[in-house]
């Protein structure tokens, strides 16, 4: 057996496996067991109910769109915070984390107050025919809000570690700024960007607190999947709730797996 320089491999690995098992696997397994109570046919029935299907589309659709928007906006914010120095930069840098810290219900109520037809922003949007509060658009905005910090925080260290000289090399080789960004910087940022995207997506899919206040929760229109689960629980339909939960879990897993594979491809150059 190879001799290890760092001690404690067995102990720490055991701890990690136990911890992850108790914290993550056990609750998930319990969920799956509960869901299996209704059988495959039951699962299919629950799923094919139009309100569930609509909520599924909204939850995952809005979460994907919000993660995309957060990826683009987060890249810009991280770029500005790292590359430029301006008065108040530290303050803005600290502001990025606020969506993490704020209780989600507070965020939801604040957003609703802003975007409601009589709110500060809503009163300007409604005359233009744009309704945000109590529509799928509101769901999207709440998801963007809670997922925002992830992309910024995953990109920042990578941006900071990029050497200035690769950009200078590209410039002196004749590349325009756009070519330098697209061919040199973006591919180097892509792995971190995908990580941030995946985190923002996961957060948006699972978000409950802030969304339900602004969504209005109109079945078939602005109802998200976690709310469907809560409603089923309130009707004591535990197995149905668990079934929807399992579906969410499976879909999220597939999405995260796909992103993980994409990320591995995007950093194929780092493997020796």
């Amino acid at each position, binding site marked *: 057996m190879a001799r290890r320089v760092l001690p404690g491999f067995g102990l720490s690995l055991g701890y990690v496996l136990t911890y992850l098992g108790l914290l993550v696997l056990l609750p998930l397994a319990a969920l799956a067991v509960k869901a299996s109570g209704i059988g495959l046919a039951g699962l299919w029935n629950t799923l094919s109910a139009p309100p569930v299907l609509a909520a599924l589309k909204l939850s995952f659709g809005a979460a994907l769109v919000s993660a995309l928007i957060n990826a683009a906006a987060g890249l810009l914010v991280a770029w500005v915070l790292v590359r430029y120095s301006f008065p108040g930069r530290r303050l803005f840098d600290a502001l990025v984390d606020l969506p993490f810290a704020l209780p989600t219900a507070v965020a939801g109520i604040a957003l609703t107050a802003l975007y409601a037809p009589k709110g500060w922003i809503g009163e300007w949007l409604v005359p233009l025919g744009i309704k945000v509060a109590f529509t799928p658009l509101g769901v999207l905005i709440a998801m963007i809000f809670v997922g925002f910090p992830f992309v910024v925080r995953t990109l920042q260290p990578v941006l900071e570690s990029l050497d200035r000289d690769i950009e200078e090399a590209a410039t*002196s080789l004749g590349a325009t700024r756009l070519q330098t960004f697209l061919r040199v910087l973006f591919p180097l940022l892509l792995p971190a960007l995908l990580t941030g995207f995946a985190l923002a997506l996961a957060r948006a899919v699972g978000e409950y607190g802030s969304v339900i206040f602004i969504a209005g929760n109109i079945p078939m229109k602005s109802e998200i999947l976690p709310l469907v689960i809560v409603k089923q629980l309130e009707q004591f339909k535990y197995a149905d709730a668990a079934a929807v939960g399992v579906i969410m879990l499976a879909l999220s897993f597939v999405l995260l797996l796909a992103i993980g594979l994409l990320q591995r491809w995007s950093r194929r150059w780092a493997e020796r």
Partner: protein
Amino acid sequence: MTITINRLARRFADFRALDDVSLSIAPGEFVALLGPSGSGKTTLLRILAGLDFPDSGDLLQDGRDLLQVSARDRGVGLVFQHYALFRHMTVFENVAFGLRVRPRARRPSKAEIAERVDKLLKRVQLDGMAARYPAQLSGGQRQRVALARALAIEPSLLLLDEPFGALDAQVRVALRRWLRHLHEEMGLTTVFVTHDQEEALELADRVVVMNRGRIEQVGTPDEIYQQPATPFVFEFIGKSNKVPVRIHGARLQAGDQRFEADALEGLADGSAVAYVRPEHLALSTTPLENGWKATLRHVYLSGSVAHLELDVPGLGQTLEAELGGEEAQRRSLQAGMTVTVQPRHLTVFPLDGKTGEPDLARRRVVHPRYGQAALARWR
């Protein structure tokens, strides 16, 4: 294609990175910018590349104002100290980059690009490595990829920033010989920055010694070593002994010794500082009338050269002398011996009466007059 650098100045806050620097670089020349860190050599290189701009002064290429040309359009090949390779691209993609980003009208076809990259990779002896990523290469290989990438755009000027700085000693020596051959083959005007005097003296046609944003001396490696123009060059290049002296009636008073020499005619009396290279100190084991009496403190043999440490009570300091290792053995020089030390020639800088600084304009190379007996004993 002559490059003319005229009175460039560049300041960073209170720090003068370049202070009134003028230089002309001839076509096909291999020029080294040599100096300690903070001497302004990298700033000058970056200005040549268009990555930095001077506060004042001109930069011309055959009469064309280069400062009006952006880094992108300058067509300068640039090699960075830490390679600055695009690590997400293969070796091939790195080298092809400069061709692929060209506007469509000037971009070679795919086949042409592949052909040119292959040729370049052969030239830098990296054929067969095209599909590797930089992370899979050694330091020397990475540096050669960086060089091939810079050469791919067919630059009119090649700039290298400490090109061997990050490599280990053996690779460094091999790579710089190789670079010298490459330069002779291609005849490309090349400017490189280094703080390593050995590198500069071995590689360059002309060495520009810089210090505190100013050019101290420009010359061939031989001139720089044999005829240093300033005290800084004496101290920075090779080894030298610094001896405080007085000029008195066209004679040089150094400690308890007085040397006569023609070169001192016309110099006003006063303090001066003299520099003498270790190999320009002649030693005699038989006592001589002229010359410092010294005790040989140590003999260090390093390879083919013997370094001697001499205690000179008459000067109140130690001197370092050098002679061939074989000669040191033949003359059985050993620690503890008493010897007479005669400088064959010294370079004297009279000190300015007001500032106390060495006066470069009154520099003199002094060959002291010794009796025939002494001269005979030197060899």
